[in-house]
C-alpha cells in the first residue's frame, strides 16, 4: 500500500472550554479543525440550542405547526426541545417589547426559572432588541436566576457595559455579537476583556448568514476565526455561536412556488445546510429553529465527532 504523507496540522492552541447551565454541559475545546480526529483530539460535537419564544408574534406559522401546540407555553415548548434531543434552550423574549406582547420583567424571570426547573438544560436568554427594555429585563434575570449559568445574548460594540456587568454580577456568560468580520469579532472580545469579563465567560457570535443570503461570507469568516484561534490568537479562543433560524427568512426556503418541492422539507434542508456549514467552519453552539433540521444536524454531528 502507498504511504500517505502526514497531513495533520500541529496548531499548538485550542479553543477554551466553557461549562454552562448546571455545569454538566460544556462548550468549546476544539484543538483542530472540526471533526478531524487525526488533528483534533476533542470528540465533542457542537451543542444544539432550540429556540423558544414568549410570544408567537412574528414567528413563522410553518415552524409553529411543527411543535404540536406545545409552542404556546415556553416551558412546555422547551420540554419538547429536550425530548427532541436539544442540549440547550435559547429563549427569545420578543414579547417584552410592548408593541409585540405583554411579558413583564416578573414574567420573564418566571419563564426562565420554569424552563430551568423543568428541563435542567442550560439556557441562553435573548432580549427583544429594544435597548431600554433589554437593559431593564435582562439584568433582572441575571440577578434573580442564580442556580444555572445563563448565556446573556447579546452585547455589541455600542452597547455592552450594562449587560456585561449584570452577567458578571450574576456569574453568567455573555454572548459577544459582531458583524461578519474577524477583526470586529476580535475587537469585541478585547473590549469585554478590558471591561473585566473573564475570557471563559465569553461566547462569540460572528453572525451566521443563512444559505443563499451571504452564507459564503460567514463560512469564510468563521474558518478564518477558527484557524487564527488554533494558531494562537488568544482573543479568538472562545466558543463560537451560530444562529441558523434566519434560514427561515430566505424566500426560496419557504416559498410555495411550483416545482420547488414541499416547503416543510425544503426549509428543513435550508436550515440543516446552514447549520452544517456553521459547524464545519467552527461553530461550537448552534441555535436552531426547526425540530427536524435540529434532529438531522445532531445525528450527523454525533457521527462526525465519533461519539456522542
Amino acid at each position, binding site marked *: 500500500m502507498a504511504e500517505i504523507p502526514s*497531513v495533520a496540522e500541529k496548531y499548538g492552541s485550542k479553543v477554551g472550554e466553557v461549562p454552562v447551565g448546571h455545569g454538566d454541559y460544556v462548550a468549546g475545546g476544539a484543538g483542530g479543525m472540526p471533526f478531524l480526529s487525526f488533528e483534533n483530539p476533542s470528540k465533542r460535537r457542537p451543542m444544539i440550542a432550540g429556540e423558544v419564544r414568549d410570544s408567537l408574534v412574528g414567528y413563522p406559522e410553518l415552524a409553529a405547526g411543527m411543535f404540536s401546540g406545545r409552542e404556546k407555553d415556553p416551558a412546555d415548548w422547551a420540554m419538547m426541545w429536550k425530548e427532541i434531543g436539544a442540549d440547550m434552550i435559547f429563549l427569545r423574549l420578543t414579547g417584552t417589547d410592548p408593541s409585540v406582547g405583554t411579558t413583564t420583567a416578573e414574567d420573564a424571570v418566571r419563564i426562565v426559572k420554569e424552563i430551568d426547573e423543568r428541563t435542567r438544560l442550560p439556557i441562553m436568554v435573548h432580549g427583544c432588541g429594544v435597548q431600554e427594555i433589554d437593559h431593564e429585563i435582562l439584568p433582572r434575570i441575571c440577578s434573580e436566576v442564580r442556580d444555572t449559568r445563563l448565556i446573556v445574548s447579546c452585547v455589541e460594540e455600542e452597547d455592552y457595559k450594562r449587560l456585561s456587568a449584570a452577567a458578571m454580577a450574576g456569574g453568567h456568560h455573555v454572548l459577544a455579537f459582531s458583524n461578519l468580520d474577524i477583526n470586529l469579532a476580535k475587537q469585541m472580545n478585547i473590549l469585554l476583556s478590558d471591561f473585566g469579563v473573564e475570557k471563559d465567560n465569553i461566547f462569540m457570535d460572528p453572525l451566521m448568514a443563512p444559505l443563499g443570503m451571504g452564507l*459564503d461570507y460567514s*463560512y469564510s469568516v468563521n*474558518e*478564518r476565526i477558527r484557524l487564527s484561534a488554533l494558531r494562537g490568537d488568544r482573543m479568538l479562543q472562545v466558543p463560537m455561536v451560530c444562529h441558523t433560524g434566519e434560514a427561515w427568512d430566505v*424566500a426560496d426556503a419557504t416559498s410555495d412556488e411550483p*416545482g420547488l418541492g414541499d416547503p416543510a422539507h425544503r426549509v428543513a434542508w435550508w436550515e440543516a445546510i446552514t447549520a452544517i456549514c456553521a459547524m464545519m467552519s467552527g461553530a461550537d453552539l448552534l441555535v436552531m429553529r426547526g425540530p427536524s433540521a435540529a434532529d438531522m444536524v445532531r445525528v450527523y454531528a454525533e457521527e462526525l465527532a465519533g461519539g456522542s
Partner: protein
Amino acid sequence: MATAIEYFKLLPKTNCKDCGQPTCLAFAMLLANQKAKLEDCPHVSGEAVEAMKESSAPPVNTVKVGTGENAVAMGGENVLYRHERRFENPIAYAVSVSDSWDAPRIAEAVAKAKSLAFDRVGMVFRLDLVSVSNDSGESDEFLAAVDAVLADWDLPIMFEINDVGVAEAALSRHAALKPLVYAGETADVEAFAKLATKHGCPLGIRAKGVEAAADAAEIAAKAGCKDLVLDLGASNLKECLEWQTIARRAAINRKFRPLGHPLMNRVGCGEYAVATAVLSTLKYGSLVVFDGLEPYEALPLFTLRQNIYTDPQVPIQVKQDLYPIGDPGPHSPIMFTTNFSLTYFTVRADIEKSKIPVWLQIVNTEGLSVLTAYSAGKFEPERVAAAFEESGVLDKSDGPVVVPGLVARMSGKLSEEIGRDVVVGTNESKDIPKHLREITS
C-alpha cells in the same frame, strides 16, 4: 506554484530584454505572480518549459467530462480554504438511471433530472450529468439504456460499469461524447485505464480508503490514464470528511501526486445521501452521483454550491434596476439601497416581512455596502437620482421616498435633485417593517 527563484534558474540570466522586461529577475517575478508566460522568453529551452509546466501545474488535475460549452470541468484546485482564493471548478451533481429499467421508466427519470433546474438572480442552477448504471451486466441492455437517455438529455453523461467488455462496447459507440467511465470497486483498474486512455475518455475509480485509492491511481497512471476521478469509497460522513481532507491536503500541502485528482462520491438517495453531498460540496468533492434527488433537496444543495464557489475577493453584486416587491402601485413607497448582494437580500427580506408593497431601487455602488459606498463617494445623491431617472420610478409612484437611515445626510441634496420630499428611514434593516407600517398608515 513555482517561486521567482525557481523560474530565475531556468532563464539565460543575460538581461537581454527580449521578453520585454528590464532584467531576467524582473521577468521571473512576473512569472511567479502568473502575470507572464515562460514562452515569452525566446531563449528558454523547450524542455525547461515542459519541466516547469509539470511542476507548476495545479496540485489537483483538471478533468473534463463531456464536450463543448456544456462540458463539466472538475478539480484544478490550488487551495484548501476558499478565503485564500476562489475554488476553481464547482462540484457537479449527477443522477443515475439503471439499464435494467424499461425505456419509459428511464424517460421519466431523465425528465425528472431535467426538471431540477432553477432560475436564480440571472443564473441557472441545474443538474450536471445523468449516469447510466450497468446493473444488467449485459452490453445490449446498456447500449439501449444509453440511447434512451440520449433521446432527451443533451448534457454530459457518465457510465457505471464493472465489466470491461461492456465498457469497451459502450466507449466504442459513445467515446465522442467524452463520458466519464466509473468502474466499480471490484473492476480491473489497469484494464479500465487502458480502455479509457485508448478512447480518450476520463475514468472514475473506486477504492476503499486513501491508501488503496493512491495505489489504484498509480496503476491507472502507469497505464497512461491522466484524466482520473477518485472515489475514496467512504461508507459514512466521517470517512467522507476525513479521507477527502487527507487526500486534498496531501495533494496541496505535500505535493503528493497519486491523490492529486478530483474526488467523487456515489451515494444513494434521501437524507443521508444529501448530507454526504453537502459535506462533499464543502470539503473537496468534485462529483456526487445520486440514485435520485427531490426538488426540495436540489434547490438548497445547488444554492450551497453557488455560495461556496463564489469568488471571495469580489463582493457579489446585483444589477442596478428597479425591483418591485409585492406588486407595488402608484402610491407605494420608494426605497433604495446599494447593489451589494448581502444588503439587497437583507433589505428585500425585511420589506417582504412587512407585507407592504414597495418599489426597491438598487443603485450600482460596485458591490459596496451602504456606509462603505457612501464614504467612498459611490452612493451620492446624484448617483441615486440618476438611477431613479433610468428606471422611471418617480413617474410610477408618488409615494414617500425613503432614504436609508445610515445616509440620512444625503436627504437634503437628494430632495433637491429629484424635486420631491424624502423621509429618513431606519438605520437597521430589521426595523424596516415597523417604519413602513408607520409611513403607510
